[in-house]
């Protein structure tokens, strides 16, 4: 009979200051109650602000006290154990070698109190972290991260000492913002204000219609639009600068560490061997100035609940000439010289054309019905735009294999290049739609945990079928490269 190990319980506790943090948070959460109360009381319906404040304070403090008293965590053997021991009893045990990443976040309140939030992700995390320890002292959070990310290096990992890979200067960050203009946000916000500016009874549509019929000279419209674009541009730059302030990416013992943020400070630690997919993307504006954005995806981590736009973001701006060097830090054995690109065949144009025509066609027909007298000419224009988009889109599609890596590039306005190690692929899908069947094409989709799927789109059916059928045994024979399949 196997002897049972003695039952151990985790002893780690949240920082006592968590009560203060939760109090501030509940003030924020119930701030609208206070505002509502003061608005009502200012109209002479009551004067007991102290009572309301006291009630909220007691409510907030009680919740915080419960959280502080009931949460326990700690490392027991090779597992990280987390439990809550009150009304809803929970016990989570995560083998440390299954942890995908450990993230430290500091909001403004955390920083004021010297605290940090620790998020622990595994392959099963999805959008929400598996475990969130809301408030530890910064030193304790750092210590925990060190313990949880201490793993045996993988054959692909470099054992070089800590390397600062990239430190974003203010110029880099302003460039990141300047090439990602938030003009649509500004126009949206301005448009939503229009009805209010024109009186309480008018809807947005009637306000826009009224504005177009009024005698505002066209120069004012042009200047207004330019003003909005300029405002959007400035907002984008400030936003990028504040969000990514002090962005530093370092490489140490097979792990990438990144730290950034002026107001909310964030720290990530990702084992290189957990990276499932690397995503280079650029807009036409960014490619014009020679910059790309690089994302990396793990099975369940690198996501940010409060800001989904930074999910998986490795570097907000990387100059084109440093991309390959940068990629080789993540995938050390990637050999660029062996790349042989296979373009999508010309007949894939028809599949792409029909897909795009659906969208533009619906838009064109809708507008033609709504504004009969001027929008009918939109229909041939929709066909033309669809044809040009499809032609350029198909021309930009290409795939390649090199070593254990597969590459897929697509997009002519916004270009995206996905790089996936074949041994990280979870499943292989071969799909053939009606039109593809007619044209003798098929798409191979490689599905990777926590990452966008990689499509080898519109390949000749024989080639696609053979590639898929050869890829499956190849992937299966890499099973022992990773103990848990991710």
């Amino acid at each position, binding site marked *: 009979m196997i002897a049972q190990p003695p039952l151990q319980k985790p002893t780690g506790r949240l920082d006592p200051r968590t009560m203060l943090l939760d109090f501030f948070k509940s003030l924020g959460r119930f701030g609208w109650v206070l505002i509502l109360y003061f608005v009502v009381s200012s109209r002479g319906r009551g004067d007991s602000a102290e009572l309301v404040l006291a009630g909220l304070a007691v409510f907030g403090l009680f919740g915080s006290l419960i959280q502080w008293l009931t949460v326990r965590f700690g490392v027991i053997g090779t597992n990280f154990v987390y439990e809550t021991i009150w009304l809803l009893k929970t016990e989570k045990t995560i083998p440390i070698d299954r942890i995908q990443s450990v993230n430290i976040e500091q909001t403004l309140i955390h920083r004021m109190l010297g605290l940090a939030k620790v998020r622990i992700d595994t392959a099963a995390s999805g959008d929400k972290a598996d475990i969130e320890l809301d408030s530890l002292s910064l030193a304790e959070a750092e210590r925990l991260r060190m313990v949880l990310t201490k793993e045996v290096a993988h054959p692909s990992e470099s054992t070089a000492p800590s390397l600062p890979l990239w430190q974003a200067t203010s110029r880099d960050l302003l460039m990141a913002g300047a090439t990602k203009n938030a003009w649509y946000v500004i126009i949206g916000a301005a448009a939503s204000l229009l009805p209010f500016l024109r009186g309480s009874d008018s809807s947005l549509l009637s306000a826009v219609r009224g504005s177009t019929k009024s005698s505002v000279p066209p120069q004012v419209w042009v200047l207004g639009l330019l003003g909005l674009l300029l405002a959007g541009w400035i907002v984008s730059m400030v936003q990028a600068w504040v969000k990514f302030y002090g962005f530093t990416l370092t490489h140490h013992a097979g792990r990438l560490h990144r730290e950034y943020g002026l107001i909310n400070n964030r720290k990530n630690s990702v084992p290189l061997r957990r990276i499932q997919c690397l995503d280079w993307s650029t807009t036409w504006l960014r490619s014009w100035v020679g910059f790309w954005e690089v994302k990396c995806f793990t099975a369940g981590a690198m996501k940010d609940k409060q800001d989904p736009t930074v999910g998986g973001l490795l570097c907000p701006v990387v100059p084109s000439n440093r991309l390959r060097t940068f990629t080789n830090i993540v995938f050390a054995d990637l050999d660029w010289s062996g790349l042989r690109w296979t373009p999508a065949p010309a007949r894939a144009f028809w599949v792409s054309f029909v897909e795009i025509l659906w969208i533009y066609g619906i838009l064109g027909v809708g507008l033609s019905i709504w504004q009969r007298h001027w929008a009918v000419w939109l229909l041939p224009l929709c066909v033309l735009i669809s044809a040009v988009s499809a032609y350029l889109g198909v021309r930009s599609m290409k795939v390649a*294999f090199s070593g254990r890596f597969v590459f897929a590039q697509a997009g002519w306005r916004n270009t995206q290049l996905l790089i996936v190690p074949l041994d990280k692929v979870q499943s292989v899908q071969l799909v053939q739609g009606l039109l593809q069947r007619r044209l003798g094409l098929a798409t191979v989709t490689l599905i990777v945990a926590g990452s966008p799927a990689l499509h080898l789109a519109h390949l000749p059916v024989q080639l696609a079928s*053979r590639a898929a059928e050869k890829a499956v045994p190849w992937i299966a024979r890499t099973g022992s490269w990773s103990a848990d399949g991710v």
Partner: protein
Amino acid sequence: MQTPHHFFEVRDGLTLQPLDEKVKRVWVINTFIGAFFSTAIFAAIEFLVLRREVAWWREPALTIGWVVFTLTYGLSMIKRRFKSWRYGMDEYALTVEHGVWTRTRLSIPRARIQHVEIHEGPWDRRFGIKQLNVHTAGTASIQIPGLPPEEAERLRSELIFTAATAETLPFDADASDLLHP
């Protein structure tokens, strides 16, 4: 190797087989249930949109038309759907293919399987069949409906308890020949 029953080329050593015929009965019942609910929604929308604006007989006529359409389409697809479904397992992966309009073949390498479950709905129980669900760490999962109970158990045991291929590629293995033989 291309056979009339397979959508795409099949790798050597893999045999794809059809589902149990009993699954067609479950699909017939599901078609009727689906038709019932979709008709209820259709009739409600019709009532709200067409009220007092059309002749009295048009609403029931449209509803009957809808019922006839959903049942005819649903029932006529069952045979084709059954014919399109194939599954198989070899030393490397579990593979399924299906699809009447859009043909799909999905393969999950056995080393990537995270967990397997056997599902049995009330109609499955009535007709003596089971459904096998296989999950990976990615978003794709395989659901094989209409398996005889012993076949579902066999697949589950093999997927979970039998080791996948013993072969292991060296870490510097080259995948370039997947596209360029």
